């Protein structure tokens, strides 16, 4: 097997894959290096992989200038936490119910979920519905509810896991022993479905942490509800937003004059990306599994 062709092929593969890995990694390194570069150096040399002069001032500024950043961070964490719980609470039992063929109206229920994957009203009617009927504009629900709680793909993925990977006999036996449907679901189905629950929870978590659209569309006035993504988004247009929004007069000495305009964007982006990178090594396996399962259908 260790022919010359094989060796050439392996070397070639390593070269290409190293290049691709670098392409994935380098932008993030540039981001990080820029965030710890002194602002005047940045103005002189631009964003660079090898800064002349380091400085953590941008981070200091971000945390000292006012509550905006820590608050947005907190909102992002709370949102992601609530989002994952809500998503699993809605998705898991529904997927389980759909996996039971003997439920009366099984076909209709499946179609009810399925149709949402084929046709949707789009942004305008959805926006009108949420703002006019439910009034979730400028509330925390505006971040939590629209679009992200569950979708046809989550439900179908979980359903097919319940159908294919959980032996019906065990559940049947428990039922004959007198366990209620809820007890069977809680004590047998859920423990056995842990892998798929982890995967869907992870998908939902990534969805919530990375979402900026809900905040962009539904949070127009109460900027204290901004998630870290919304804050970052706002700062693309308006770098002064951070300090303009600061009501903390005690910190007035860290005034506008000294705003590290160039590095601050990058330091905030690093903060936004950090939690994702920290969970990535642990989450990766479940994530890859989910992609493989959802695979073609995703």
């Amino acid at each position: 097997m260790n022919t010359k062709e094989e060796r050439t092929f392996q070397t070639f593969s390593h070269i290409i894959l190293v290049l691709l890995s670098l392409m994935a990694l380098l932008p993030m390194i540039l981001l990080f290096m820029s965030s710890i570069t002194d602002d005047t150096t940045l103005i002189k040399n631009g964003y660079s992989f090898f800064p002349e002069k380091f400085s953590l001032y941008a981070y200091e500024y971000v945390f000292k200038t006012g509550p905006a950043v820590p608050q947005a961070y907190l909102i992002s964490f709370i949102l992601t936490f609530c989002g994952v719980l809500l998503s699993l609470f809605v998705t898991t039992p529904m997927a389980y119910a759909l996996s039971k063929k003997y439920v009366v109206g099984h076909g209709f229920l499946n179609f009810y979920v399925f149709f949402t994957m084929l046709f949707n009203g789009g942004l305008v009617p959805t926006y009108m519905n949420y703002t006019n009927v439910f009034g979730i504009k400028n509330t925390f629900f505006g971040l939590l509810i629209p679009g992200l709680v569950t979708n046809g793909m989550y439900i179908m993925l979980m359903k097919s896991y319940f159908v294919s990977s959980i032996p019906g006999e065990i559940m049947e036996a428990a039922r004959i022993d007198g366990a209620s449907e809820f007890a069977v679901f809680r004590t047998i189905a859920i423990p056995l479905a842990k892998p798929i629950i982890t995967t869907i929870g992870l998908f939902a978590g990534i969805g919530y942490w990375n979402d900026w659209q809900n905040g962009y569309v539904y949070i127009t006035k109460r900027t204290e509800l901004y998630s870290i993504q919304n804050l970052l988004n706002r700062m693309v247009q308006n770098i002064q937003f951070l300090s303009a929004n600061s009501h903390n007069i005690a910190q007035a000495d860290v005034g506008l004059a000294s705003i590290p305009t160039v590095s601050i964007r990058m330091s905030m982006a690093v903060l936004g990306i950090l939690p994702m990178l920290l969970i990535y090594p642990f989450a990766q396996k479940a994530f890859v599994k989910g992609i493989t399962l959802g695979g073609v259908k995703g």
Partner: protein
Amino acid sequence: MKQTTEVDTARKKAKFKKALLGSIPFYLMALPGIIYLFINNYMPLPGLVLAFKNYNAKKGIYGSEWAGLKNFKYLFATNDAFIITRNTLLYNFVFIIVNTVFAIFVAILLAEMRSKMKNAYQSLILMPYMVSMVIVSYLVFAFLSTENGFLNNTVIRLLGKEKISWYMEKKYWPFILVFVHVWKVIGYNCIIYLSTILGIDRTYYEAAAIDGAGKIRQITKITLPLLKPTIIMMTLLAIGRIFYSDFGLFYQVPQNQGALFSVTNTIDTYVYRGLLELGKPTLSAAAGVYQSLVGFVLIVVSNLVVRKIDKDSALF
């Protein structure tokens, strides 16, 4: 005779009643999902009539007067309808081709890799998929910013050329957007192909190796033909979504720059801007209806084709 049928129907009724009673716990379990999908997906649907109305905020969607097809006529009379349709279709078309080719290429390299580095490569290549579009726009900005960007300050300075105002020059953006898109999703797509390749029976390769087929021949004669169903499926499903675009990619990455609209405006960004930036909800609604209807037809048709080829891969 009559009596037996009566008994039969009575029995059936009793059976149905029992099945219905037995189903109640499952209805309760499905209830949160049913309610959510109703609110999020079904309730907005009647609002689509907005596209056929003269919207008056005071009277609401249903109280406003009918406008017939006026909004659609107006939409298609402008150049916008052509531009957003062209951009959406062309970008998606290029994405489908480039994604497929690159993802298969990388998947084959990963599948054939014998070293332990394989997992590290896969993790790194998948990483951009986890990054939000807002942050992607910052990453792109770090390279392209006119005053401070890495390209202008390091690469172009080294080459001794003039600085380029990346965010003002539309000729670069089709390439930038394709690059960013592929960069972000290649890890995801390649995992799908990789899982198909890893499912191929290894004895095929062993037999081919004994017959003297080299690596390249094994790939072209075994791997690629066996990937064909997955390729067809992925492509058809992508065609089903060809009328939809990644809003974040086209809105965030070009930083909503007006100078770039002719090459960055897609149906999704148009609908968004019309509704929330320009205050033209009816025009947005018309474009939305256009997208929903054509999108629906495309999804249904492409799925019927998928179903013909491989029933298990079809959505329905």
